């Protein structure tokens, strides 16, 4: 597994570097903004909290965006045959890719955690995004879990399209809720973000939301198993 991981890092070194650089830039911007504006940044008028969260979210988006390159390199008959001939087989080949993506997310999580700690210090303990970072991490993990089996089955281009469809479907459900659901908690509030946080903290949704990170981890594991199966079937078809 170590060798396969090394291969993944070696082949995707440029995208790996890009991920790290983007994460560092996003976190750097967050720290500079906090250092320049102090506690004013996160006041209700300035909406800096939203900006910080978007910066963190963007940092987490990069490993997902570049993960397709990881699969693109292997989208040919020779690569599949090579993967199947490895001592670890197709299973090790696919698992190494899942580990690679997870490691990338963990690196981003680590950098954002350090940034959050520094920001916590700069703002005198007024802002900490630890729980939200865990949620963003889980969300990105879940999206990757959905995306990867499709990428393996249909190729990276179609895989991206299917992921887009899934996101569009979730957005549509959200839109339907916003149009027809009870959103008095949002309408009657001056600060939508604060209202959203209050809604999330209320008893009704806190429990299902708290299960989300565990579901994402389970989904990622399940996705890995499905991908192995799909890859094996695909590789056998190549042979025919």
């Amino acid at each position, binding site marked *: 597994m*170590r060798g396969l991981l090394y291969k993944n890092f070696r082949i995707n070194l440029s995208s790996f570097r890009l991920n790290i650089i983007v994460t560092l830039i996003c976190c750097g911007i967050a720290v500079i903004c906090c250092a320049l504006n102090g506690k004013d940044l996160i006041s209700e008028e300035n909406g800096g909290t939203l900006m910080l969260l978007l910066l963190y979210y963007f940092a987490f988006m990069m490993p997902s965006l570049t993960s397709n390159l990881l699969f693109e390199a292997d989208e040919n008959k020779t690569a599949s045959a090579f993967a199947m001939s490895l001592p670890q087989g197709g299973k090790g080949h696919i698992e190494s890719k899942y*580990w690679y993506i997870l490691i990338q997310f963990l690196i981003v*999580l*680590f950098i954002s*955690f350090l940034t*959050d*700690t520094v920001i*916590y*210090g700069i703002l*005198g*303990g007024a802002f900490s995004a*630890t*729980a939200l*970072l*865990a*949620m963003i*991490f*889980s969300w990105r993990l879940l999206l990757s879990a959905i995306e990867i089996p499709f990428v393996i089955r249909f190729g990276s281009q179609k895989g991206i399209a299917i992921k887009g469809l899934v996101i569009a479907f979730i957005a549509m459900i959200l839109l339907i809720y916003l149009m027809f659901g009870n959103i008095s908690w949002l309408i009657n509030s001056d600060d939508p973000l604060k209202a959203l946080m209050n809604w999330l903290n*209320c*008893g009704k949704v*806190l*429990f*299902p*939301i*708290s*299960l*989300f*990170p*565990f579901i994402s981890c389970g989904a990622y594991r399940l996705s890995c198993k499905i991908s192995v199966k799909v890859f094996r079937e695909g590789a056998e078809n190549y042979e025919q």
Partner: protein
Amino acid sequence: MSSKKKLTVKRLVIFLVISFLPLSMLIPILWAVYGEPLYSGKNEQLAVISYLTGVFGMMVPAVAHLITRLVTKEGFDNTYLGVHFKGKEGYWFAAMAVKLIEGWAGLFLLWAVFMKGTAFNEAYPNINMQNMGAYLLQLAASIIIFFPAFGEEWGWRGYMMPKLLELMPKPAAVIVGGIIWGLWHAPLTIAGHNFGTDYPGYPFTGILMMCLFCVLMNCFLTLVTEKTRSIYPASFIHMINNSLGAAILLTVFGSETAIKKVQELNSIELFFAMTCFTAMTAVISFVLFIKKDKSKIESI
């Protein structure tokens, strides 16, 4: 002493010096600057600084591990950074479950020992779906605490313990390792971390208690690390221990009266109540850890 052992001792000493120095220097400086202990001062800024010291301080052993390997040209074999699941699932599961169970058992023990005359649901009226959600969310958010926990574990269990195990028998290594780990916490303990500053025999009792606690924890952590040959399960244990201990569960689920009753206790009394289950886990882990040695002796 063979040259190999001498080299191990040299590496261990370098590692310990690098690990101990930062906190031993920083804590007295902060105390002198702010005029009060870091963890029991009333200054608001101190609360933030103590958090930062805690987070970055926990990463010092990992940095020491890295520097020692580079300085002594040891290389990067046996770093315990690999993940080995096959045949070790039980230890991985124990890493996740044991500390969570300990937390709940500790909460029950607090009620049984210190809240006589109060019904369980009166002491903990907040055990409901909403707070269970908050608890699970805290567990999920613990992934963030995983990094500092990993920082400590990669130093202590990933470097110090294998070196000690090379130098002495297993039982002695576990005890010595625990004491060293406890002493590393001494600057924090003196500054009021864990026990505050208002207890009989301050600060020596606190340091002693911390050493005892670290020896107990070290049994379980070393067992899991050595059996899985991986540092991550121990990091999970450390993470859960720091973020979901009985004291934290009390603040989430306990009534105001229950919290008040516990706050009235002497921190040393509270410590013994909280460490009961850690001690039980430690004894079982210790037996499991040295068991292999006994079977080897019998076969000889």
